[in-house]
């Protein structure tokens, strides 16, 4: 059974002040792209310490040894999936921000990573300026959330909200009305600043909602996994 995060972690709000990314993990198997990403990251976060590797195994060792502020994690790697690193990082360093950097833009690849605890994803083939902007936003506590992922998260929570046989045994992780509202607007294509204006809230507050949504997705998925493991254990 995986250790579960304390529920109060969900309630803790990030500081409005943007954290500065000093130690960064870069997990990418293509040397050229890794070099390109390193250059880009250094431009956005000058003076940061970057630990880079092409292997899941090494990345997990690094997670055990070094405390990271940010991790850019590729999914398809020669010795496994980046999702394992996201999970490990979430367990060992809850404050570190995992961001998936991938060539896959489909939900089948992205959603497991988000459930494992990643805060958004960046598509690798995007133009340099776009990636730069996304990294800046992340450092300001504004994780990327695309409309398609927002729709997927909505579908996930609304399926959970349906009455189930084992409803009482499920942990009660559900979205607040505000969070749902934010999610719905993201799905319709509104940007976070726009949503802030529409709801009369600050940009930071909206960003916090987004983070909260990611956290709840992670907590709910873990609880589900734990429950599933328990169920299998009982029946075995």
């Amino acid at each position, binding site marked *: 059974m995986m250790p579960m995060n304390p529920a109060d972690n969900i309630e803790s709000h990030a500081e409005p002040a943007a954290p500065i990314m000093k130690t960064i993990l870069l997990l990418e198997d293509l040397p050229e792209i890794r070099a390109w990403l390193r250059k880009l990251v250094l431009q956005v976060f000058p003076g940061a310490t970057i630990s880079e590797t092409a292997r899941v195994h090494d990345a997990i060792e690094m997670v055990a040894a070094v405390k990271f502020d940010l991790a850019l994690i590729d999914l398809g790697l020669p010795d496994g999936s980046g999702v394992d690193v996201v999970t490990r990082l979430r367990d060992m360093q809850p404050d570190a921000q995992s961001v998936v950097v991938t060539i896959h833009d489909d939900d089948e690849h992205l959603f497991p990573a988000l459930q494992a605890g990643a805060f958004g994803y960046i598509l690798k083939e995007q133009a340099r300026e776009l990636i730069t902007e996304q990294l800046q936003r992340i450092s300001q506590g504004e994780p990327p959330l695309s409309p398609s992922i927002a729709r997927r998260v909505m579908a996930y929570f609304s399926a959970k909200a349906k009455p189930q046989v084992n409803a009482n045994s499920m942990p009660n992780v559900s979205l607040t009305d505000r969070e749902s509202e934010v999610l719905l607007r993201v799905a319709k*294509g509104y940007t976070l600043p726009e949503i802030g204006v529409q709801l009369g809230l600050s940009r930071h507050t909206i960003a916090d909602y987004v983070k909260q949504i990611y956290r709840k997705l992670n907590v709910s998925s873990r609880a589900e996994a734990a429950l599933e493991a328990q169920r299998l254990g009982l029946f075995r």
Partner: protein
Amino acid sequence: MLRVLFLGLTLWCALAWAPAAHAEVLVLRQATTASGGGDRFPAEFSTRQVTLPDEWAMSRPGFAGSLWYRTEFRTPAKLPRGDVLSLYIEHVCSTLEVYLNGNLLHTSGANPASPGAVPSAFSAPAGTRSIHDCNHPQLLPLPTALLKDGGNQLDIKVSGHALATSGSRQRAGGLSALMVAPQSELAARYSMQSTLQVAAPQAMSATLALMGGFMFVLGFINRRESHLAYFGALCVGWAGVSARMWMRSVPTSHASAEFFVCALLGFIVWAAVQFLLRYSGARFRWADVGLPLQCATLTLTLALAGPGRLNAVATVWYVILAIEVAAAAMWYLRSQSGARSAWVMGGLLSAATAAALIEAAVQWGRAPTFAAQVAELVAPVVVVLVGLRLVQQHGRALQHAEEGKAALEQRVREATAEIERNFRQMAELRVEQVTERERKRIAGDLHDDLGAKLLTIVHTSESERISTLAREALEEMRLSVRGLTGKAVRLADALGDWRAEVVSRLAQAGIEAEWSAPEDLPQTLGARAYVQTTRILREATSNIIKHSGASSCSVTAGIADGDFTLVVQDDGSGISAEVEGRLDRGHGLASMKNRAKQMQGQCLVESSAGYGTVIRLTIPLNRSMESS
């Protein structure tokens, strides 16, 4: 058969009245008897007065041979015109010779030289025939020339057998009352007696033999219906017994014929009991063994007893056999007590029982002749009716079997169709699974290799054009491997994606964006149309950011006449000829138009220097779905 019986009853009723109506019928009930052979009344021997009918079993037990009867009658005063005075003898056993005033009038046939001689053994000499007229009524015309005006002397020589050597009282010696009357008065009696005693048993024998043969073959072929075979045997046996009634001449001695008929009864009872047991669905080993054994014992006891005690032994056996059949019938009826149609067999068996009781009474000499004659016919009729019932059941069973077979065939067809359908579905599913797996493998390979290389080109190429081409190739590759070509995108979702990208990019470039689109569109857009539209919109946005110098931009989406329309308007400097040329080289306006054309759509660019640019994109929704 029932009709024959009914007719017989009617006739009998009519005849019961006949004597009262016609006084001319002369009934001769007194006769003088004298025993002896020869061809004239042996008046020299001791004579004796008897009353007719004279049954030897009563009047002279144990007597066998020839006996003369002498009666006298007066010629009636007047005869109807064209009629002949006739002598009617209802029953005479076994054979007779009739003399009128000393002249031989009739003889039953070539009797043995010494008719009275009782054969000492069962095996009569070769060529020996025994003749009996027991069942045949006699109607003899009395020639007018031989008649005397006064009294006439009628001598009848009867050759017969003792009851002890006969299996049945009907075939023991005897003579019924004589009737003398005009032929027209006697014809009806004669014809009815012939029907009852000869024609009906003949018909019965033929029917039973035919039906029995048929049933036997049917039961023999189909061993599950073995009761049919036993019934067939019963019918054939009965036909043999009843043949003894009407067959005048048999090529064997009287003793042998009687022996065979009695032995046949054992066989009939064997068949009857087995039939009743098997018909009720039971099968007993003791019956299978015991009945043939009993049959053999019967034959053996009859043979050991000899012809002199045949009647006595046979009577004992009759009782045993009757009890056996009755027990079997009871067993059968008990096993069928729940069945709805049990009354049919019940009624038939009751009728048979009644007939058997009457027959028993006849053998004790306690039954009226006519009742005995009817009773003798009832039993074969019952057998025939049971046979018809069996045929009906067999036919119905056959019909049910046919129906069952048809139903089974139908079910087999359905099951086959079901299996084929399932197989097809499974095959399809399998193909889908294999396709899916293969697609995933190819997707993985492409992403790992081609994707990685394209990505490297995107980020390492010095030329923006090549970067863009590589990025588009990457998108194209994704679309192909994901099989997205089949999956449609909801227009509402697509608008969300487009809005997020366009608005955030414009906002980043400091251009004010205004986006208006209808909410919750139910239409869908083909995956390729979605990607192409995304590219057109991306290109348009890039142009605005890079070249227009606009400060604000509005995007308006809508549905018009089944087409999806998208209008992108900016307040920039417009596109001059110089700019347009540059744009086209850089994968610009021409490619946007080209993409729209691929979707059977249209992309119009309206622009004039200083008044901004309007891009109108129209995509037919249905066709774009089909083409994608």
